[in-house]
C-alpha cells in the first residue's frame, strides 16, 4: 500500500481494541490508491476509475458510508431487475437466472449488497441440480438478497422454510414417520452447530421438530397431522418444539454468532490466518445482541485490521471477483450468459454449489487448470471479438479519462487494475512488455491489459 514496507506487529494485530477501532489515516498508514482499491474490491467487485478517484478524495470513512448506503436509488434498481427475472420461464435451466445475477453485479449501484448475497449463497449453499426450478431458485436468491445486510435471525428463519432449501436437502416430505435427519444436521451446521455442539440425539430431536413441512407443487405447506407435536429435548431445553423454536434456540447458542463472525471475517478480511477467539470476541458479542449483519460488516470495513497488511491481498479472488475485476473497471456490460458458463468452468457455477457447504475458495480456487482458464477468459474478454465481442476496450476507457499517449495509457491501466501496487522489478518488466508489443496501439493496449490481469497479484483480492 505500498504495504510491503509497512509492518503491523502480530501483538497489535491480535489486540481487538486496536484491530476493530476505525482506521484513521496517518503518515505511517496514509489513505492512498492502494487502500481505496482494496476497499472497493472487498466491499464490491472492484472500482472503476471514477470510483477510485472518488474514494481517494472522500477518505475511508465517507467511502465506507457510500458503500453501505449508496446515494443512488437502489430500491428502484432492485425492482427493475426483479421484474426482469420474473419474466423468465419456469424452465429447469438456471442459465438465464445466472446471467441476470451477473448483470446485477456488473451494474448494481450497491455492489456490497450483491457481494453479501453471493456470500450467503455460498453459506446456505443450495443447488438447482436438485431443486430443478429456476423459479424457486429465483425466490431463494431474492430471500438472500433481502436479508443480505439485514437481520441474520430473520434470514435463518426464512431459510428454514424455503422450498428450494427443503428440495435441495431432500426434506420436501418431512413426515412425522420419517423425520429428515440429514436436513436437521445440515441446517444446524449452517447455524454454526456442528459435532462439537450437537449429539446424534439433538439432531434427531431437531428433525422431529421440523416435521410437518412439505413442498407441494413448489409451494411450502405445513400439514399439522404430519407434525410430531411431542416433547423434544434440544441443547438442554425441553418442550413441544417446532421449527421456529429450533431457530430461536440454535441462535441463542454461543457457537451461532461466532460462526457467522468467523465466516464474514474470512469473506472480508483474510483467508490466510485463522483469527483467535479473543480477536473476534467484541464482534461476536455485539452480533449476538441484535444479529445485525450490516453493522458487523460495517465494523469490519472501517477497521484498522481491514486496512492493514494482515488483510491486504490475503484473499484469493473467486472466479466472479476475477472476471468482474476486469469488467467493472472497463465500464461496459458484457454478455453474461457466456460469462456464467465460463465462470462455471473456473469452479464457480452460480446456483450450483458443489455441496451444501458452498465453495471452499481461498487457495482452492487456484490450480493449473483454473489459472489457464482465467488466462483464457481474460483473453476472451479483452480480445475485441468472440463471445464477448468488443464491449471492453481499454484504449477507449483510457482516452475517456484523458490518457491518450500509449505510455500514459499503460500507466493508467496499472493504476486501474493494480493501483500500481506491484513490486518494482515486476512492474518494470510488465511495462517493457507493453513497450515491445508494437502494432496497432489499441490492440497493444488490450494485450497489456491482459498481461496485467493474469499476474499473480491480480488473482488476489
Amino acid at each position, binding site marked *: 500500500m505500498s504495504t510491503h514496507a509497512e509492518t503491523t506487529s502480530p501483538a497489535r494485530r491480535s489486540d481487538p481494541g486496536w484491530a476493530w477501532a476505525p482506521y484513521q489515516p496517518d503518515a505511517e498508514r496514509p489513505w492512498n490508491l492502494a487502500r481505496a482499491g482494496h476497499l472497493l474490491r472487498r466491499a464490491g467487485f472492484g472500482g472503476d476509475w471514477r470510483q477510485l478517484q472518488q474514494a481517494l478524495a472522500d477518505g475511508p470513512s465517507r467511502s465506507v458510508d457510500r458503500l453501505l448506503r449508496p446515494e443512488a436509488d437502489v430500491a428502484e434498481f432492485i425492482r427493475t431487475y426483479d421484474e426482469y427475472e420474473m419474466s423468465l420461464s419456469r424452465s429447469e435451466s438456471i442459465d438465464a437466472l445466472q446471467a441476470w445475477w451477473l448483470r446485477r453485479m456488473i451494474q448494481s449501484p450497491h455492489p456490497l449488497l450483491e457481494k453479501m448475497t453471493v456470500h450467503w449463497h455460498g453459506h446456505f449453499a443450495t443447488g438447482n441440480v436438485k431443486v430443478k426450478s429456476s423459479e424457486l431458485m429465483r425466490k431463494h436468491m431474492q430471500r438472500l438478497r433481502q436479508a443480505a445486510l439485514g437481520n441474520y435471525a430473520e434470514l435463518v428463519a426464512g431459510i428454514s422454510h424455503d422450498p428450494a432449501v427443503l428440495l435441495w436437502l431432500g426434506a420436501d416430505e418431512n413426515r412425522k414417520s420419517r423425520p429428515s435427519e440429514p436436513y436437521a444436521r445440515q441446517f444446524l451446521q449452517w447455524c454454526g452447530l456442528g459435532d462439537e455442539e450437537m449429539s446424534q440425539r439433538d439432531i434427531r430431536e431437531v428433525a422431529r421438530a421440523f416435521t410437518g413441512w412439505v413442498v407441494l407443487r413448489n409451494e411450502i405447506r405445513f400439514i399439522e397431522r404430519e407434525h410430531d407435536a411431542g416433547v423434544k429435548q434440544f441443547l438442554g431445553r425441553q418442550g413441544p418444539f417446532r421449527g421456529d423454536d429450533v431457530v430461536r434456540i440454535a441462535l441463542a447458542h454461543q457457537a451461532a454468532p461466532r460462526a457467522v463472525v468467523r465466516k464474514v471475517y474470512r469473506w472480508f478480511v483474510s483467508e490466510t490466518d485463522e483469527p483467535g477467539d479473543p480477536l473476534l470476541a467484541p464482534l461476536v458479542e455485539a452480533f449476538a445482541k441484535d444479529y445485525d449483519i450490516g453493522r458487523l460488516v460495517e465494523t469490519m470495513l472501517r477497521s484498522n485490521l481491514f486496512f492493514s497488511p494482515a488483510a491486504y491481498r490475503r484473499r*484469493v479472488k473467486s472466479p466472479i471477483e476475477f472476471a468482474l475485476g476486469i469488467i467493472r473497471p472497463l465500464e461496459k456490460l458484457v454478455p453474461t450468459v457466456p460469462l456464467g458458463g465460463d465462470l462455471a468452468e473456473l469452479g464457480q457455477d452460480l446456483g450450483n454449489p*458443489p*455441496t451444501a457447504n458452498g465453495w471452499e475458495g481461498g487457495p*482452492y480456487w487456484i490450480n*493449473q*487448470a*483454473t489459472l*489457464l482458464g482465467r488466462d483464457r477468459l481474460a483473453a476472451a474478454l479483452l480480445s475485441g471479438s468472440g463471445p464477448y465481442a468488443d464491449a471492453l476496450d481499454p484504449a477507449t476507457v483510457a482516452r475517456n479519462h484523458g490518457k491518450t499517449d500509449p505510455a500514459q495509457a499503460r500507466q493508467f491501466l496499472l493504476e486501474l487494475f493494480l493501483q500500481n501496487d506491484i513490486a518494482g522489478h515486476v512492474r518494470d518488466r510488465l511495462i517493457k512488455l507493453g513497450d515491445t508489443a508494437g502494432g496497432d496501439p489499441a490492440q497493444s493496449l488490450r494485450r497489456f491489459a491482459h498481461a496485467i490481469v493474469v499476474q*499473480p497479484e491480480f488473482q488476489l483480492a
Partner: protein
Amino acid sequence: MSQTRRQFLQSALGTSTLLSLAPGIPLFLERTARAGAAKRTDGDTVLVMIELSGGNDGLNTLVPYTDDAYARSRPTIRLPENRLHKIGSDFGFHPQMQAFHRLYQEGHMSVVQGVGYPNTNGNHFEAMRDWHTAHPADTTCQTGWAGRAIDHAYSAERGNVIGLSVGPGSRPLALNAEKVPVLSLRSLDQWKLQPPAGDKGDAYRKQLEQLAEVPRSGDNTLLDYVRRTCSGAYADSRKVEAVAAEASGANYPPFQFAERLRAIAQLVRADCGVRIYFVELGGDGFGGFDNHANQIGNHDALLEQLSESLAAFVADLSRHNLLDRVLVSTFSEFGRTVKENGRRGTDHGAAAPMFLVGGRLKGGLVGERPNLTDLQNGGLKFHTDFRRVYATLLDRWLGFDSELALGQRFEPLDLLEG
C-alpha cells in the same frame, strides 16, 4: 511427521521446524500438512475410470458359454460359442471384443467377477448415484468417492490438477469434491493458451512466462502459491502443446470415445500430474447400455467401441513406455437379468464384472464364478463389494488413503503386481 510433510513445510515456509512456526502457519497450509498431502512426483500412477452408462450386460460381455443356464435363459440373444473369443474353457469375450481378448492373453487385463453391493438398486439414477458416492445407504450424499480422495490429496505446494472429467457432459458426481473444483475437459485446447489479440508469434507469451518466474518479495504465502502455480501451468501448457503437435503414430478408431482416450494419453504423456480421469461411454438418456429390447446390435456396437478404443489407448501408452503407470477400470450401475425379457433384451439386474486394464496387473479372472441359477431379482448375486475394488484402486494403485475417501475400511483385492 513424514519426511515429505516436513520438506513441504520447509519449502513452503522457508523454516526448518514446524513447531517454531505453529501459531503463524496459514490455515490452508496447516490443513494441507495435516491431511498428509502427497507430494507430486514425476511418474505418478494414473487411474482412468470408464463409466458404461445404462447398466452393462456382463453376461454378454464375458460369456459363460459352458453354463447351460446361460443358453437356456437367453434363447434369442445368447452369443454362439463359435464366435466367442475364448479364454480358458469356460468363458469367452463377446465377438466384437477381439482386442479385449488380446489384452487379456497378454496379461494386461484383470476381470473382477460378480461385483455389486447389498440391496442393489434397480433404478438407474439411484444405482449410479450409489456407484458414484460409494455411500449406498446415504441418499443425500453430495460428494463422490474420487472427489473426496482429491480433497485429501490436494497439495498447496504445486497446485496441479488431481482429477478431471473428459468429455462433453457435466462433471460426474464421483468427482464432486467439497473443496477442490474439479473441471470437465471438453478439448485439449483448454490446456493451451490462447494468444490474446493480435499476438503474432510467441514473443508475448514468452515474456509472460518469464514474468511468472520472477519471485515476488514479501511474506505473502498466497501470492507465492499463485505465482508458482502459474509458472507450472505455463510450463505444462507448453508440454501439452508439444505432445499434441507430435506425430505420435497412435492409431485410434474413429469413435468420439476413442478421441477422449487419446486426449487422456496426451495428458499422461505431458505428465501434468493428473491422477484420476473419468470418461463415459454410452451416455445418452438413461445410457446406451440400457438395452431392454433388441439388445444385440446396439450392445455389439458399444462393446466394439470400448474394446477397440481401449486397445488403441494401451498401444499408444505402450509405445511411450507409459502403460506401467496407467490403470483403467470400467464400471456400470448394475448388470442385467440373466433371462432375456421377451423383447430380445434384458432388464435391470444386479452384479456384473468390472474390467481392469493396465501394465501392472496380475491378470486373469478374479473372484467367484457367478452362479446363474441363484439369483437376486433375476440378476446375479454379488460376491465382491464394489468398494473393495475402489479401495484397491485408491490404496494400492494411487497411494491415497481409501478409508478417508470411502469413510470406512474395505479390504483391497490382490490385483496388482508387487
